Structure formats: C-alpha cells, structure tokens
C-alpha cells in the first residue's frame, strides 16, 4: 500500500470526506424535527449544493488527468481526493433527497450517480489488485516481446510439423490460425486461459496421426498418451519420434506463452472495462443534474 492513492497525504482526503459525510449527517438529522426531510428545506438545499459541488470536483478529475503539462497538485493527490470524495458523494446526495425516490428525472440523476459510484468502486478495486498481478505475470517481459516469442514458436512449430507430415502441418497451422490473443471485451475477460495445453495438443496431434493410418473409431476410445505410445511403437524412425517430441515441446512452450499474453490482456481489460460505464455515465450524470436543478427551479 506504500504510496497508494488511498493513503495519500496521510489519508488527508479520507479525513475530509469523513468530515463532509458527518456534516451531511448533522444537517440531515437537524431537519428531522420539521417536515419530512427533503431537498426543499434549507438543509436540503445545503446538501444539494454540497452534492453538486462534489460532482463538479469529481468530474474535473477527468479533465485534470488529461492536462499532462499541468504540474500544480499532483495527479496522485487528485486521484486520492477523487476516490474519497466520490465515496462521500452518495452520502450527501442520499440525505439531500431524504430517501424520497420516484419515477422522475431526479431519481434518474440519483441512479446515474449510484451507477457511476459503484463502477468507480470497481475501478478502485481493479487499480489496487490488477497492476500487481499484471507485473507478476509479465515477469519483466513486455507484451510485444511475448507476442514475438509466440510468432517465433509458431514458425518453429510449422517447420517441424511440415517435416513430419502434411497432416501435422495442417494441425499446427490450424492451431496457429485459431489462436486469438484478444478479441471482444467479453472474450478478453472470459477467455479460457491457463488450461493445460499439452493434453489437448497431444490428443489432436496423436489422433491425427492415427486417423491417417488406422480406423478413426479408436481415436475416441484411447487417451492421448495411449495414442502417442501406439504411434511411437509403430514408427520405426527414431528421427521422426524425435521430431514429434520436439514439436510437442515447442507447442507446449507456445501455449504457455499464449496463456501469459491472454492473462495480460485480460488484466488490462479488467482495468479498462469499468471506464466504459464510468465515463459516459458521469457525463450523463452531469446532464441529469443540470436538468434536475433547472426543473426544480423552473417549477419552483
């Protein structure tokens, strides 16, 4: 946690946000003795102003983080404030509305705010958890380098397979063609990575060899290892056996590299996906707050 945005400035913004939430609670409880708490009492207006100001400050973070030349107030400071003030926002706004909800533009704004805050919570979680996992997975190698490695292994694998047989080449080629490192966002997140590669490839490879020589019915009844043994027994060429083993090594290495790249991409997707909600909904929230304020005073 050293140097995290959470403990920036000795939790300065945690304290400020807690103070803000406390003020909001005091305002709310001071309004309990009168009419049912709502946004129209002086306490309600005060809480509303606090909420609107918070929203503007939180949105400004989106602009500030793109001001790359700006050196006044570090981005870490802004991010820390963004997180903690973002947590105090739903407190202020919920007390502003006095727990009154309905099918109207005001509750629309509230719902948007809650969606933004909830997605922000996920984002905070993602930023706290995944960078570490990502670094561990990369282990000092960039994604581009890993992809270059896979390409080299593809090349080696294809060469080895071509020497072995046409079927083996087709099999490896199919594997190369079918390999998707990324894909859609959904695919990136749900991609089936990390499964042991060897049995699958052994199965395919052995099955392919056997299918070309024997009745295909036995393909499904024997385990990949048995297939290999069967194939090796039949083969008389030691060089060929050597090539098969070599090919399997290459393919295995390749598959683990593919898994690492896929995991890398998945971590990136985890860290990015929430922004697709967080950012557009934040802007929609600003519009809804504008409509909320105008409509409230239009029909005062």
């Amino acid at each position, binding site marked *: 946690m050293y140097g995290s945005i959470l403990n920036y400035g000795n939790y300065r913004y945690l304290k400020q946000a807690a103070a803000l939430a406390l003020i909001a609670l005091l305002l709310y409880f001071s309004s309990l003795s009168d009419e049912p708490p709502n946004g129209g009492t002086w306490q309600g207006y005060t809480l509303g102003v606090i909420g609107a100001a918070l929203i503007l400050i939180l949105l400004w973070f989106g602009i500030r983080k793109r001001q790359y030349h700006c050196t006044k107030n570090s981005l870490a400071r802004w991010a820390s404030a963004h997180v903690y003030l973002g947590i105090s926002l739903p407190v202020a706004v919920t007390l502003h509305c006095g727990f009154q909800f309905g099918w109207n533009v005001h509750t629309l704004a509230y719902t948007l705010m809650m969606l933004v805050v909830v997605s922000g919570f996920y984002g905070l979680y993602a930023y706290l958890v995944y960078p570490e996992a990502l670094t561990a997975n990369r282990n000092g190698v960039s994604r581009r380098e890993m992809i270059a490695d896979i390409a080299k292994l593809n090349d080696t694998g294809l060469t080895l397979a071509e020497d072995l047989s046409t079927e083996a080449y087709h099999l490896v080629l199919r594997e190369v063609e079918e*390999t998707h490192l990324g894909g859609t966002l959904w695919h990136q997140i749900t991609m089936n990575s990390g499964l042991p590669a060897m049995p699958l490839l052994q199965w395919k490879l052995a099955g392919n060899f056997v299918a070309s020589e024997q009745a295909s019915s036995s393909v499904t009844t024997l385990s990949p290892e048995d297939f290999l043994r069967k194939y090796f027994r039949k083969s008389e060429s030691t060089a060929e056996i050597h090539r098969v083993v070599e090919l399997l090594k290459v393919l295995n290495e390749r598959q683990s590299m593919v898994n690492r790249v896929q995991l890398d991409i998945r971590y990136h997707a985890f860290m990015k996906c929430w922004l697709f909600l967080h950012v557009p909904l934040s802007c929609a929230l600003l519009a809804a707050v504008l409509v909320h304020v105008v409509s409230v005073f239009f029909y005062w």
Partner: protein
Amino acid sequence: MRCLVETIRRRRNEVSDTKEFDTERLSLGRGADQDIHLQTRLAGLSHAVIEQESDGNLHIRALAPHRILYNGRKLTESVLNPGDEFSIGSVYFTVREAAEPYHLHLEIKEPTGRQSKELEDALLATVNPDYGLSGFSMRRAAWFLSLAIVILFLLLPLAGFIYQPLGIWLRTLPVVSDLSWSPGPISSAHSFFGAECNRCHEHAFVSVQNSACTTCHKDTPHHVNEKLLQSIAALDSNRCASCHKEHGGSEASSLIRHDQTLCTDCHKDIKAIAPDTQLSDVSDFGKNHPEFKVTVTPFADDLSQPLRIALDQKDRLMELSNLEFSHALHLNKEGVKTPDRGKVKLDCANCHKPEQRDGKYMAKLDFESQCHECHKLNFEAEDPKQEIPHGNDAIVLTFLEGYYSARALKGDYRHLSAPQVIRERLRPGEELTPEENLEIKAWAVDYARDVNSEVMRFRVCGKCHTVTKNRDSSEENSRPWKIEPLGFNQRKLPMAEFDHDKHKTQKCTDCHEADKSEHSEDVMLKGIADCRTCHGGADAKNKVASSCIDCHRFHTSPSLTMEGKKIETPSKVHSSPGTESPPPVGNNVNPRPDTR
C-alpha cells in the same frame, strides 16, 4: 476458364508480375505444384481451388481443413464477385472486374519481410485493441447520453410549457413531459388535477403563488384575527406553499403540517416578530407553555371588554357573572330540597349536558329545564301557581300591572294597601263607577310597582340575579329595576379546542373544582398542571404526545379570507360551536357575553 492474375508489389504498389491461366481448376497453395504459389507459412500446401460451377458462377473452395478469410469472414466456400477481397495467411486477393476474354481477374498483394514477422502481425491483429467495441467511443456515448437526457427531460418539457397544446399532448406520453419533473406524488386531495402542472406552477422560475391556491380555497380564513395581522408581518410574507408542501405523497403529511416547529419557530420568541404582543413564549406543551389564560369578565364597568387572565393569577381571577350561584350548595352530598320530589342529590350532568352535535362543548344552560323545577317565579301568595315570565325583565312591570289590574277588578283582594272597592267582592249585576275604575287603576299601577320592586330586588329575580336601579330616565317608569346581563362566557378557553367528548372518561371534577366553589365569581378550571398529568409535549414518551395543533387552530380570522376579503358567512369548519360568534382571539378581543 481464362484467368488473369496480377501480383502487386507492396512497397511500390505496382504490378510486378502478370500470369495467365486457362484451366478448369485454378489451385492456390504453398505447394510448388500449385497454379498460384502462396509464399506464406499460414497457407496449406494445397489450400484452395477456384472453379466454374454449373450455375456459371466462379466459386472458391477451401480444401479441408483450411479456410479462407473472405470479406472478413472465415469461410470454406464462396462465390467470387468483382470487388470482393479475401486472404490466405498474409496474402491478400482482390477480385477485379474481368475484361474479355478473361473470366477471372485476380489481384494479389504479396506479403513482404520475414516469415516470423508475418506470423507476429497475424497475432497482433487478434489482440483487438478496441476490445471489439468498434464504433463505440466513450466520448460519443457520453455525448449521446447527455444529449438524450437534456432533450427528453428538459427541452421537450420546456417546449411543452411554452406551447401548451404540445405540453398537454406530451403528458400523454411516457417520460418526455414535465410530469417527469414531479418530485413526488400529489396528495390525494389535489390528485384530481395533479397531472395539470400549470394549475399551480403558472410561471417559469416563479414559486407557486398564493393566487393559485385561493382560486379554489377562496373562503379559507386568514391566519389570525385581522387586528393582529398588521403587527405580524412575518405571517403575510410567507406563501401558502411555505407551509403547505405538495408532492409529499398521497397521505401528504407535509400538506397539512402537524409538527410544532412550524408554530414554535416564531412562538418560542414571539416578541421578535410582534413586539407589542402580550403572548408568552411557547416552545413545547410539556416543557414550555404558559399557564392557560381564561377569557373572563371581571368586576369592571365595561362588560364589553372581557379580559384574559392566567389561571395562576388567583388574586385577579374572578368573573363578574351577575348571578348568585353556589356550585357547592347544589352539589351538596345530602341532596337539595325540591318542591315535588323531596331531597334530590344532584351531580354535574343534571344541569350540564353535552351539545347534541358532537359533544365537544357543553350545551347552553337553560332556566326552564335546569332551574325552574326548584326555582319557582311565583310572586303572589294568594295565587301560588302564577309566575313571572322568565327571560325578559323589561316586561315584568307591565305583566304585574296587568295582573293586579285584573285582580283588582275582580275585587275581594284583601290586601291592606288596597282601597275598599278592591277589598270587597263585586256583586252580580253591580257595576263600577268611572271614579272606582280610576281608583282601581291607580292602585294596581302603584301596587304592581311595589311588587315589582320587591320581586326584582329580593324575592324572586334578585335571589339569583344581580338587579340594579335603572338609570335610564326614558325607561324609569316602565322598567325601574333591571337584571344585569349574565357576565360569564360560554367558553373560557376560546383559543384552544377542548373536546369534552374525548375526555368523557374523566370525572368533571378532575378539571373543574365545582364541589368547592361557593360563588359564581369563581373560575373553577384547574390549569395546565392538571392537563400535564396526562398530556406531554410533542416528544412525550409516557404521556399523550401533544403538539400545538392538537389544541390550537390556525387560519382563524373571523372576518377575513386569505385574500383579505370579508367573510360573508363564517366558515362552519372554523367557527366554534358553543359561541354565537367565532372565538375571540388575542388579548383585547371581545367574545359576546351571554346575555340571557
């Protein structure tokens, strides 16, 4: 099938090689025996063939297990149409319009560079940096959502406000009308026009005006008595909607407020807004409420000016009732003597009965039904059944004159003061002379006057009523003595709404010390301490929680509406039963005394 195949060099984008084929079956693959030899590791030795099928179209067919990326989709077979693009590995083909005599014109873009670079590029292409959300941009989504919200929820309702027919039509649709601005359900009382926002919200950015309320609520009495209105500017500066909040739900506790802060905001320091007031500060019934003030007519000349005296000011607390009455005597435990029923034990309910309507107040007392059984108004010993009429002292003398004239004319009235002609019986056939008539008349007038004086002052009327000499010279002859009007009010606490019916489980003497009162001047109410044995403040836990509005009312002006117009007929809701006029308010306001 004649085919023209042109190879394009990537770097210079020019045709580097042209081949022609005249074959039934054009083969594509990495093998050296293929018609089109593909220099890519991602192609099979024999990858695909192009043939003319029986339907006349040219087909490309991948040989198992290979496939072709045809117009962006992985296929095993497709019809070749001019303009189509397909690729095998990193070799890209474009189908061109074939000019005579060719049937097929293919353009090939060959890969350049290392084989592993080609493989690397193919892998990189699968990473999909835009997450497969091509066409989705956060910026565009943000704009779309924001604009949609502004248009649907702001601009359309605004247009409907500017052009009312549009607004009315929009309200029939979901979402897009000003109904989406409604912060909460309308109270059930107003819900019948709840969808017509502009019945109340008449002008943009102007809070709801009182005129919108008084369009319907035109008879609602003003806040308080109009004499006080001048001095309480704070009341007038408030809008109706400052207190009566709509959109608080169908039950609308905010529409008619019961919380006491609405009152105590001002009344906890009432002098701040009304420096001249004689009211005391109040913040809570249980903790800070002054002793009750009763409206009484004390011993003073001016009966039209009753005073408000606190119940704890015992030395001042008396009431000029102009009646001689002892509650203690009537409530004697031994009973009281009656003419016909012997001794009868009386209790409060013998005289004081609740009003028939709702039992909130006690009915007016009535001589005939409550007093007359014992208190006979007879005046003539020889004629005990004859009684003076009750209720109008102005006719008593006239009545007596008539009675004694008739009595004297009959004769045989043996009173010492009577002349001979009256004392003797008038014989049959005998007639009085005019002189005798005059004598009888003179005696009857004189005697009636004496009897009047006696019954008024001592014997009949004066026994209960305060009787004074009439100083009005014009009436001196016809009404020498007069009965003072009764000085007690029907309601001692006109500023509060006490409901006897709700307290009928209590004994009368719990609040009224009637059994100890020997004089009608006594004000028998016990006071606030007595109420507080059961009632606490608004937050009371072990007592009846009572806020201001449980006893007091607002909008009580007897004569003015909220718009400042004269109330023609006092509103039934706000007028107080038991008094003929609305309750007096303030310290110096007169309830009309009971003058029976």
